[in-house]
């Protein structure tokens, strides 16, 4: 019996007798503390038995079996260089606070713990900040832990944490209801403190703006719905430009309906009155994009776009609501947060619409618009199909990668589009004049149709 036990235990573990301790991994754990003007972090590094030789070799440069103070400092600095820290996109340079090394013999047992404490000063910034820490030290043999402490300073509140699969990437978003730098700001701040529940509104506003700016699927739905807005439907095709007034009214109706829809469900969802499982909502959103993409190719519901926008807007709003779910604040503060967040969403939405509106209006007067419309619709259609598959079957695919790459260059694309549309309009205009002079039928003119 005892032999069986011995064999069992031996078989269930590696041949090395020290299997109670770390073996083949280099554990690196960082706990960061967010403060008003700086961040501080403490890092533990524990090389496992199998990797200890490599780690010791990296520290003990002169190979004498002793980790001198100089060697310790050099290694610690190297570790810091292998970290990437940034605040609001700006790189931060960490500075070493203290180090503590075990003896090499202990590291060989897989239980030696290296401690590296560091700090970094934060440049002045807004009240909503994003801290990113990436650990690129010895990725092949390491496992990572990243955490942040609940801030000691009550003016700082962590809003979101994101990590990649192996925790080599860690993003912390936080809001500060403080950090006023000058007298005016501090007077403003004390006014805000009197309206304490609403003090977080500006940061919520920014969060809302950011949320939809990153919500490529929401934007894609809206844009796809706007593509056919300046056009008039003739039987089962999209035909010519419906006129400036028509275009503007259509666009206004679609955007307003979408806004109303998602505002309603954002308020309901964020206040906990409505709660739907996340996955069906995500799939429905992807489906809504497919519908609006199809509609941009061939009119499925001409004239009824606002209803579709409003109806699907209700679904999109539920997705917005999940961001506000873990706020854990009082009733008034929650209402104020929802308001601020929604305002942020609407503002960013308006910006996006305004960015492409001129191009839409101008380009839709030209035959070149068909190309643009098709490209946009096909792009949205394929993206939505990819998302449906991804969200239904949990199959990750390249859709997010591609869409994000495009979205990142959004401003450039909008500007490029404007240039193209102006050029196309000029060409079309000149062609028209020439046609009038030569009395040839103009291009892309169609009989007035029922909208």
């Amino acid at each position, binding site marked *: 019996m*005892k032999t069986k*036990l*011995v064999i069992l*235990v031996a078989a*269930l*573990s*590696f041949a*090395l*007798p*020290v*299997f*109670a*301790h*770390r*073996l083949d*991994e280099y*554990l690196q*754990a960082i*706990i960061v503390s967010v403060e008003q003007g700086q961040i501080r972090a403490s890092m*533990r590094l524990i090389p*496992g038995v*199998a990797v200890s030789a490599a780690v010791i070799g990296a520290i003990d440069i002169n190979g004498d079996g002793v*980790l001198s*103070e100089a060697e*310790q400092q050099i290694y610690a600095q190297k570790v810091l260089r292998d970290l990437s820290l940034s605040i609001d996109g700006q790189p931060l340079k960490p500075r070493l606070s*203290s*180090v*503590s*090394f*075990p*003896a090499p*013999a*202990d590291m060989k*047992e*897989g*239980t*030696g*713990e290296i*401690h590296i404490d560091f700090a970094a000063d934060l440049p002045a910034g807004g009240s909503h900040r994003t801290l990113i820490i990436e650990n690129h030290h010895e990725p092949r043999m390491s*496992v*990572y*832990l990243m*955490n*942040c*402490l*609940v801030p000691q300073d009550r003016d700082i509140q*962590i809003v979101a*944490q994101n*990590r*990649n*699969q*192996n*925790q080599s990437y860690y993003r*912390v978003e936080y809001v500060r209801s403080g950090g006023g730098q000058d007298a005016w700001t501090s007077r403003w701040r004390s006014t805000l403190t009197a309206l304490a529940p609403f003090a977080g509104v500006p940061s919520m506003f920014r969060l809302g703006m950011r949320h939809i700016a990153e919500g490529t699927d929401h934007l894609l739905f809206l844009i796809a719905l706007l593509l056919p807005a300046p056009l008039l439907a003739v039987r089962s095709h999209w035909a010519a430009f419906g006129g400036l007034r028509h275009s503007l009214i259509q666009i206004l109706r679609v955007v307003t309906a979408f806004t109303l829809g998602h505002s309603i469900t954002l308020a309901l969802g964020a206040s906990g009155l409505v*709660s*739907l*499982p*996340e*996955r069906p909502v995500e799939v429905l959103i992807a489906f809504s994009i497919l519908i609006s993409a199809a509609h941009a190719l061939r009119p499925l519901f001409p004239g009824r776009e606002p209803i579709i926008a409003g109806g699907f807007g209700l679904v999109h709003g539920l997705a917005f609501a999940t961001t506000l779910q873990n706020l*854990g604040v009082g009733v008034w503060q929650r209402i104020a947060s929802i308001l601020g967040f929604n305002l942020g969403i609407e503002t960013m939405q308006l910006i996006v619409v305004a960015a492409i509106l001129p191009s839409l209006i101008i380009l839709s007067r030209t035959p070149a618009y068909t190309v643009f419309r098709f490209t946009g619709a096909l792009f949205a259609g394929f993206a939505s199909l990819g998302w449906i598959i991804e969200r239904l079957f949990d199959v990750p695919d390249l859709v997010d990668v591609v869409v994000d790459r495009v979205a990142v260059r959004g401003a450039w694309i909008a500007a490029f589009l404007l240039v193209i549309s102006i050029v196309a309009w000029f060409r079309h205009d000149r062609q028209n004049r020439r046609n009038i002079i030569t009395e040839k039928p103009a291009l892309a003119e169609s009989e007035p149709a029922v909208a």
Partner: protein
Amino acid sequence: MSKFVLLASASALLCVTAFGFFDQGKDTPKAANQTQAIVTATTAFLNSLSADQRQKVQFPFTPQKTATAARFARTGGPGGPGRGGPMQGPGARPGTPGQQNGQHPGRGPGGSGMGPGGGFIGEQYGQAVWSNFPVSDVPRPGLRMGSLSAAQRDAAMHLLQVALSAEGYQKVLDIMGSDQALSETGTPYCSGTACYTIGIFGEPSSTKPWMLEFGGHHLGLNLTMAGEHGVITPTLTGAQPAVYTSNGKTVRALARENDKAFALLDALDANQRRRAILNYEIHDLVLGPGHAGETIQPEGLKAFDMNEQQRAMLLDVISEWTGIVNEAYAIPRMAEIKAGLNETYFAWSGPTSHEPGRNGSAYYRIQGPKLVIEFSPQGVGGDPTMHVHTMYRDPTNDYGRRFITD
């Protein structure tokens, strides 16, 4: 007629009063009695020791503002600062006076405890040391079971039985049995039931605060008592191998911690599960020894978003740690946790199923305003289902600090 009514109501009243007096319901134990019982058992244990042994097992009780991480070297006594100062940079820190009590390792070359700070990190609170490592790596203050006679060992185990609940005591036996199974495969460090160490801090008293420590590899119990309060945070449990045979029976250590958590996860609906399951891997404890007083930003699913049945299941998981100590201490502790349950988070990372009869390999964490529990299978090169570390803290009351007013 009226006399009859008077008589009837008087006797009814009498019955009800008597009933209320004598029927204590589930015979809820009185916490103050409990402390007295532990004091009695501890005194009996101390009386069974020789004067020399008594000197090695009992230390002054020095409440600190916070515990600190300290370094320990394998071949000697603690190399870190003796009075719980913060761990400083590298450099020789010989053992400070007050540390002369017998902590000689069972194996390995003898050492003086001098030299550079060792590799192993433990948490130092006054003279108490909290760690998960084998006692030869991080020596615990006190006496090892192996250095006691049979009668003395019985007295020590009886003390544990009084201090802990029946399930808690069994859990301790399971963990020690697991380490015993480990020792039979041969280890270069002290392992097996003989290595577990008991330490007493302060004078056992039913009014003044004092502390009891029991632990070794994969076990670190700290019981701080102050009058009618008994606090068992911080405590760590663990096991390797998690499944072993003892007296012909298969024992799976920490089985209930595992199974109850999986049951809770299964009881969540898809939306809740999505919130509870973190999208990243967690390979070790975050707030183990050395992280006293730290509170990380909570994640996962809030109990606020669970239904009644799920909340009951969550409390059931928590009770595997809070219920290690005897009922009289555990009941007020659970009440405190229940009060903060709305703000308690349940987070999961890893596979959502496990083989029957085996532990799983997923990490989970339960974090509330006065509670942190972590369950961390250790895939450090072996089978993670056979090796697990857990920890249990109350960041607002580790080492019973809240109940010690001085």
